[in-house]
């Protein structure tokens, strides 16, 4: 495949893209093409539908005794009240704009300018929204991940001083559980952050996962409407 695959190449590759058996650079190049080509997206979607249906051919088999009770225990534990992790940066501006419409224009004028400024920022790169989410190691926040849905979409991670590892492997986990390698970076005394354009739509990303050379994995969850 050339650096910039054309529609014919992408359609040849569509079954393997749908099956998730295309790896690395080839997949990233295909995703870049698909982002700007609705016709090819439709072809890949058709193949993905077939790929999904295929899984129904596997037999239904009862899981081991106690599976249900073990799962329900995990479910109840997981649904204890905990703070919402994802903060939408523009939410505050939207609330303030709504207050302005209620007659308190002077009080929120600076915030309206703030929101207006962001509209210009979004217009520059077909942006839709920003999001941020803490990077957790277990229940401990050890940094922050910022993300932008636009063209291109991107993610930027910032680690705090408690992180001691030198090298991090960064992956995305999509809504379908697929893991997409994003790259690696080395942390030096002067470097605590790293960013990269996303090969997929930010809306399909659920988790940004950093696996260090030593120590526990860091994860930031993104959930979108």
């Amino acid at each position, binding site marked *: 495949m050339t650096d910039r695959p054309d529609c014919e190449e992408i359609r*040849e590759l569509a*079954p*393997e893209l*749908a*099956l*998730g*058996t*295309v*790896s690395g650079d080839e997949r990233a190049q295909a995703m870049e093409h698909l982002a700007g080509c609705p016709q090819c997206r439709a072809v890949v979607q*058709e*193949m993905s*539908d*077939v*790929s*999904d*249906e*295929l*899984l*129904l*051919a*596997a*037999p*239904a*088999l*009862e*899981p*081991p005794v106690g*599976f*249900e009770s*073990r*799962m*329900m225990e*995990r*479910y*109840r534990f*997981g*649904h204890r009240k905990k703070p919402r992790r994802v903060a939408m940066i523009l939410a505050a501006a939207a609330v303030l704009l709504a207050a302005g419409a209620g007659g308190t224009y002077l009080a929120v004028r600076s915030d309206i300018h703030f929101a207006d400024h962001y509209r210009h920022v979004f217009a520059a790169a077909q942006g839709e929204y920003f999001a941020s989410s803490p990077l957790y190691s277990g229940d401990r926040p050890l940094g922050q991940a910022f993300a932008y849905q636009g063209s291109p979409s991107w993610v930027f991670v910032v680690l705090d001083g408690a992180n001691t590892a030198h090298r991090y492997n960064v992956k995305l986990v999509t*809504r*379908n*559980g*697929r*893991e997409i390698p994003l790259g690696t970076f080395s942390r030096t005394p002067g470097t605590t952050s790293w960013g990269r354009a996303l090969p997929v739509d930010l809306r399909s990303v*659920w988790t940004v996962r950093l696996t260090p050379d030593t120590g526990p994995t860091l994860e930031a*969850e993104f*959930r*979108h*409407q």
Partner: protein
Amino acid sequence: MGQSRRKAQPYHLLWSVSDESLLAAMGSGDSEAAAAFLRRFQARVFGLALTVVRDRGTAEEVAQETFVRAWRHAAAYDSRRGRVSTWLLSITRNLAVDRIRTKRAQPIDPEVLMSMELPSTEPDPERAGMDAHESVRVHRALRTLPAEQRQALLLAAFYGRTAREIAELEDVPIGTVKTRIRTAMIKLRSQLEVTDDR
């Protein structure tokens, strides 16, 4: 998750609730809905996991992780992108493929998958979300494919094998494998569309 906490429903009534509603209720913390969702889908999820990883302990781990992801991400499920059943199974498949890649396990001959007993043509009411008709329909469509196309397709679809890996396994050129997979997918699309009564 942005959804109001629903009042728990009597257990028996939940079987008539749609997959989508059950998923949404589960995502909002309704443990009755979570139990019903689990019972509706656990055999399919475990069956697929075991088909791929071939070890009951590992298959249970994969099945558990599948359901954890399902309830964590229930709010982000988009019905326009597919049914709950296929969404859930695609999560299972990806997790299972990750496991066999980590352990470098060898996949079973996909013909074994085809020879497994077909599900009953009578849907089990307790698994309404995983309509047995769908499984039978896919099996029948697969049986119409030439063996070499079916083999290549199942190795890719169930075991995440790349065209290059299948070419090495079957000792044929990579171009031949790509053609087999592509031809098989196009035939299946046509078969499944023709018989699609959804």
